[in-house]
């Protein structure tokens, strides 16, 4: 158990060029811009944002599944430590054993032509982690049991299973190589509500049992609220707020976070009409507005917001916000329960 953060991201930017054709000027999508973030060891770290926020790209960058334009991502555990922006091929091969991804779509993430046993065993075979078939089978059985998969079902093909079961197979595949760091990219978004809770509980218990660190990417704030201990909110490729979960939900500081929380439809039919309405839509990541990226929709935007981009500053012990006016807004407005 170390105190060093598992992932230490500094100034990370991921830009994609989209060429407009042979003679048109190159257009760049700034998917992630200047993100600085620490993911503590053994935490269940939530990353929340809507479409276009860059959260999926950030998650993939942490797995070195997309090229990094600038900045650094340092992975550290009790054995190794390297910077993913400058990693060698051998180090990358080693890293693959330690960091894995759980996909969103349980129907697309499993090869329909392989049995469940083969799907789960594939990482072991690719990474050469076992030597004999018996060893592979044993490890597959172990992890399948941990993920509450019926062992008889290992012979079946994915088409025999429901969404929730498939997601568990995905989880088993991600965990079979005994990684330390897992990125769960919208892993429950495609599941029914009654199954979501089951998979979330499974993830939580696996985290405790195996000592894993999770980066949980989602657009669903209420799910994040229940399962994560830290949250980071993204908007248009930038971090706008990070905090421990309780602190964030008790007193959100950034106007976007507040709007997100109040936009969640309440289960109380009488709790209507109190949502803080956000007008307009998210700007295009190829042409972000100057200054604060949220100023086009922010109800509290003033002149400085349109000119100067606010940076994350330490505000309170661990509650970080990127907003010019957060202090005055926090003083004047009472925090709204969502």
């Amino acid at each position: 158990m170390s105190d060093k953060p598992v992932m230490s991201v500094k100034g990370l930017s991921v830009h994609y060029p989209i060429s407009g054709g042979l003679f048109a000027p190159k257009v760049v999508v700034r998917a992630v811009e200047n993100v600085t973030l620490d993911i503590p060891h053994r935490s269940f770290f939530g990353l929340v944002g809507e479409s276009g926020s860059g959260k999926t790209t950030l998650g993939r960058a942490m797995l070195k599944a997309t090229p990094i334009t600038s900045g650094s991502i340092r992975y550290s555990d009790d054995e190794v430590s390297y910077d993913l922006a400058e990693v060698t091929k051998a180090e990358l091969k080693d890293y693959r054993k330690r960091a894995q991804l759980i996909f969103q779509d349980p129907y697309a993430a499993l090869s329909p032509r392989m049995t469940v046993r083969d799907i789960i065993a594939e990482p072991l075979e690719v990474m050469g982690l076992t030597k004999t078939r018996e060893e592979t089978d044993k490890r597959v059985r172990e992890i399948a049991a941990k993920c509450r998969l019926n062992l008889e079902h290992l012979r079946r093909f994915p088409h025999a299973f429901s969404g929730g079961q498939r997601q568990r197979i995905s989880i088993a595949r991600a965990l079979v190589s005994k990684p330390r760091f897992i990125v769960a990219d919208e892993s429950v978004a495609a599941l029914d509500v009654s199954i979501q809770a089951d998979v979330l509980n499974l993830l939580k218990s696996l985290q405790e049992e195996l000592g894993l660190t999770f980066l949980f990417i989602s657009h669903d704030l209420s799910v994040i609220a229940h399962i994560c201990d830290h949250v980071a909110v993204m908007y248009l490729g930038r971090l706008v707020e990070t905090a421990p979960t309780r602190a964030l939900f008790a007193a959100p500081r950034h106007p976007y976070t507040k709007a997100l929380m109040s936009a969640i439809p309440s289960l109380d039919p009488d709790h209507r009409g109190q949502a803080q309405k956000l007008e307009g839509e998210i700007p295009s990541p190829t042409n972000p507005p100057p200054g604060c990226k949220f100023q086009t929709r922010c109800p509290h935007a003033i002149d400085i917001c349109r000119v100067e981009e606010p940076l994350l500053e330490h505000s309170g012990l661990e509650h970080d916000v990127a907003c010019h006016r957060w202090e005055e807004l926090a003083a004047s407005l009472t925090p709204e329960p969502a």
Partner: protein
Amino acid sequence: MTLLKVENLTLGFHTDEGLITAVDDVSFDLEAGEVMGLVGESGSGKSVTAKSLMKLNPGNAVYGDKTKITLTLDDGPIDVMGLRTAREMQVVRGGSVSMIFQEPMASFAPAITVGDQMTEQLQLHKNMTRREATELSIEMLNRVGISDAATRFKQYAFELSGGMRQRAMIAMALSTSPKLLIADEPTTALDVTIQAQVIDLMKDLVDEFGMGIIFITHDLGVIAQTADKVAVMYLGRVIETGPVREVLRNPAHPYTQGLLNALPDLEDLDTPLSPIPGDIPSPLERPTGCVFHTRCPIAMAGRCDVEIPQMGPVSTGHEAACFAVEDQRMAS
């Protein structure tokens, strides 16, 4: 006036694996100006039910004999099941009944401008001239909150963002002034901040147009905010209906209770999430008796796995199909 009366809707599909029952003996009413939420998870049959109202199900659909869908419009009641020719069905589709879908990109033809599609259906159903149709369409686009409507009118669907496309689809659906609007998961594909905008829009439009809306979704929060009454479906059967406040505050059926318990609640971050145990049975393995008994915490062996419980009253306007509820009613 009862706008829509659905009685004993039963529907199955012929597939490679056999006859799959999608909807089993579903009945409900809808008044004009009322918003009814149809809630269920995958396999609940809610989408199929909605499509049945406009006879939009694929060719291998088989309806039950006792199925009766009655739509009461200005001219009088129409038996939807009895409609045969395309001309007769035109009355139902797009004229008095409109439908909006989950995936707005899928309902706009990619190679025709948004404006052309909107005016086409107006000219078809309302016999307007092209100019009248254009005027009305642009007005509707404005009404749903699309800025710069005249420019958007001439654009293609891919040029609009997700939220705008959904609004355009709502505008298109409403421009024929339907009496009944069927909304099939209209906000599921949208970001939550956009969803909030669209929900507000729909509520305003209900007040203004006075139509009946069937709002299909899996999101109970959305239902709480928009619906007057709710029907909960599981595996093709309606297992609970009632006024939305009643059902959400005092759910009677174990499934509804389980569903509400499984939802993460922002008010109460300390309670662990409690899922409904088990999995939704595949349509090939439909349970006997009560469809929910395989996952029900209070299932009674010998009864719940043998007999099918019928809808019985819980309180005024609130009904549930459960033997435990029935027993409690008998006792009191």
